[in-house]
């Protein structure tokens, strides 16, 4: 897990992009209820690092982020694209520790659990 910024830096209802040590780009979202989600920042449809700049909301109760390019919706929980079941975003682990937001690959989290 890698610290990326202070929790207070995140705007409720928006995302930020973070650069992990290995060059991976992660999109981190703080929702209106202060819950946090992290998914890959790469839009698989347009091959551009833009997911962090998408709008968040829900579709039928499922929290989603919408790609700012061609507006496909992705589940923030599973990364699955709700408009094309063959496509999904990678999901990352995210937590708040001492007011700092930490992000890491889900495999790391499972390994340490």
């Amino acid at each position, binding site marked *: 897990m890698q*610290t*990326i*910024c202070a929790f207070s*830096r995140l*705007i*409720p*209802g*928006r995302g*930020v*992009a*973070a*650069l992990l040590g290995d*060059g991976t*780009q992660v999109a*981190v979202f703080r*929702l*209106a209820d202060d819950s946090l989600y992290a998914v890959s920042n*790469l839009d698989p449809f*347009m*091959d*551009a*690092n*833009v997911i962090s*700049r*998408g*709008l*968040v*909301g*829900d*579709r*039928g*109760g499922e*929290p*989603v982020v*919408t790609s*700012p*390019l061609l*507006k496909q*919706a992705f589940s923030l929980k599973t990364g699955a694209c709700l408009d094309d079941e063959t496509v999904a975003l990678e999901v990352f682990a995210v937590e708040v520790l001492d007011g700092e937001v930490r992000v890491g690959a889900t495999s790391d989290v499972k390994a340490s659990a």
Partner: protein
Amino acid sequence: MSKQLVVIGDGMVGRRFLEAVTQRDPSWEITVLCEEPRPAYDRVRLSAFFDGVSAEELSLASDLPGVDVKLGEPAVSIARTSKVVYTDSGEYPYDKLVFATGSYAFVPPMEGADLEGVFVYRTIDDLEAIKAHSEGRRHGVVIGGGLLGLEAANALTLLGLETQIVEFAPWLMARQLDEAGGGILKQHIEKLGITVDCATGGSKIEAVDGRLRMETNREGVAFDTDLIIFAAGVRPRDQLARECGIEVGERGGIITDTSCQTSDPDVYAIGEVAAMEGMCFGLVAPGYSMAEVVADRLAGGEATFPGADMSTKLKLLGVDVAQFGAFDGPLATTYLDPVNGTYAKIVLSDDATTLLGGMLVGNAEPYPLLRASVGGKVPGTLADLLGGGEVDAALPDAAQVCSCNAVTKGEIMGAIHEGCHDVGAIKACTKAGTSCGSCIPMLKQLLTEGGVEVSKAVCEHFTQSRAELFDIVKVTGITTFSELITRYGTGSGCDLCKPTAASILASLSNGHILEGEQASLQDTNDHFLANMQRNGTYSVVPRIPGGEITPDKLIVIGQVAKEFDLYTKITGGQRIDMFGARVEDLPKIWRKLVDAGFESGHAYGKALRTVKSCVGTDWCRYGVQDSVKMAIDLELRYRGLRSPHKLKSAVSGCARECAEARGKDFGIIATEQGWNLYVGGNGGFTPRHADLLLSDVDSATLVRTIDRFLMFYISTADRLQRTSKWVEALEGGIDYLREVIVDDRLGICDELDALMEKHVANYADEWKGVIDDPEKLERFVSFVNAPEAPDPKIEFETVRGQKFPAGTTARSHAAPILLGTPSRLASERN
């Protein structure tokens, strides 16, 4: 050899026939001989030509397989034994021949009827000649107070002429209305400043001092005028048939039986030229029926003419006039309201059980219901029907809803059940509503009756339409999305309702769009005040009001583009786009632009984009008003105004229209006297010319009307509904819009004015608001934990001396297009 079909005439009925015959039997090889230089057009809407609708927009032409249309090549003779039609330049053998020659305007024998300045009202060429002649003149006389005459009078008033109607019959529209109806109609028309003299006939026209003088059958009554239009009826164009020995009627018209066959079994006649069993029909609907009959016959069918519904409904000079079924009958009941200017007459069978017909003047709302009920029970109480009250009654399935195309309610309900869920789909599927359009309100009712709920809900989180949300925000004073969704919606929102709410909050002037919670609602483009491009970089578009820019500012744009390595392009909106900016560079770029006096151009927002202009009076030798100054004033007034969709405008300094104002949401064209305002234009997917809303107004009136137009649009349009679709969807269209924002029929103009004043007073440059605010600046970073590290995935390549997103060359080469370069052509010759 395939079968040869020759059609003489390319009018509305001829065109309908071609569509029908090519659909039913594509094996015919068809030649159409058309006298006019242009293919078929919508003659029913001819007067719209003076309302700004172009000849192209009236065109009904379409490419039909196997049909060869010879424009400007009239048939001159027919050899029926050898079965050949001759023109001046060719000969066309036929197996079957169809006359669709229509009518010509009747000009009574009168001395001086051939003088210059005397016209008829029949073709686009006639209209163009009238328009040309009217320029710089002030008075016109229309001879004829029937349908056509009133259309012509409307045309003259639209051309700005004082208009006089002269009608021989004792009242107006004597063929459709009785004396009381004609009287109410006259009352309406005179209110428009048109003078009407009935029971008056012209007897002689003379040229006097460059003008015309028409004497009449009434002693001492003569009219001095600049222009005279004969609109006293039409006569069938049967000359050609007469000359080749085909039987014609006593009062003209080619005699046919109910299959439209003439005295020659290989020759048919359809439309106004046909005298079916001796009777000519001057309306398009019976002509369409004939076209279908002949198409069926030529495909081996046995159709016969079903009888004509002569019902008509028109809006003449803004007055609704309708007549349906019988004109008079055994039991007639009438209602006359001189205060509101309405008249209604309902004709019943003598036992008062069956509706036979009637007429309506001033308010034709019950018309679709009444017309469709002719021959059946009276649909409602007489008092409601006559007095224009609410009528709530279901039509029988057999009732004809669209009389132009003979479509019954049953057929329309069938189409609705098979999945036609909007007016457009019903039109495409049944042809209902595709001719005169008067049944479209009825189609909407039938959709509702068929259980189709036209949902205007913004998304799954709000059942309300955008217009309803706008009202809620305005009335409750709610300033946050969270309050709006908690009180009026469900869930947490989405990419549809959030930007909609953001736009509404911004339209109602709620501070900087990135302030507080609003920041989380903005679409990506609004959030970064720039347009995201395909590779995640942004475009930078500073405002250049009216397209006017100093050399110093041009140099700044060049310097900024060079420093940040941006691709530059001049846009259609007369400004300069810079592409390829990384998100972390945006504040630095804008700092330089703001320091040089630039502001945000809102290219990223659903907001006013640009007001284009031509060069105007200062430089152009044709300009009649200062279009550049007006464009700058308007662009500065409405900059930053958030709306349901983007807004574009243009100002042209003269009628040559170099700024292409009629393709804009609001376009202004200078006149000698002031400005003409056009609204609802669009380029895009479905181009539409803007409609004329006001003519010859001064600058203050112009601006006030645009203020109201924009605010009324912003208050009532759907999400992403451009003004063109919005104007089209307004019940009552442009006339209704004028009543609301010019005549203040709803009493809301003060409020609209206040909303715009608030916008103008609260405007502040959005980019300046960001670069002066460290907290907002914090968001413009590539990575939250590495603010200046560029995204390594953003790569560029060089094409035509500028940078493009990597892969541009590969993408453009995906589908190679060979261009005929000179060297290649030369090699092909060798």
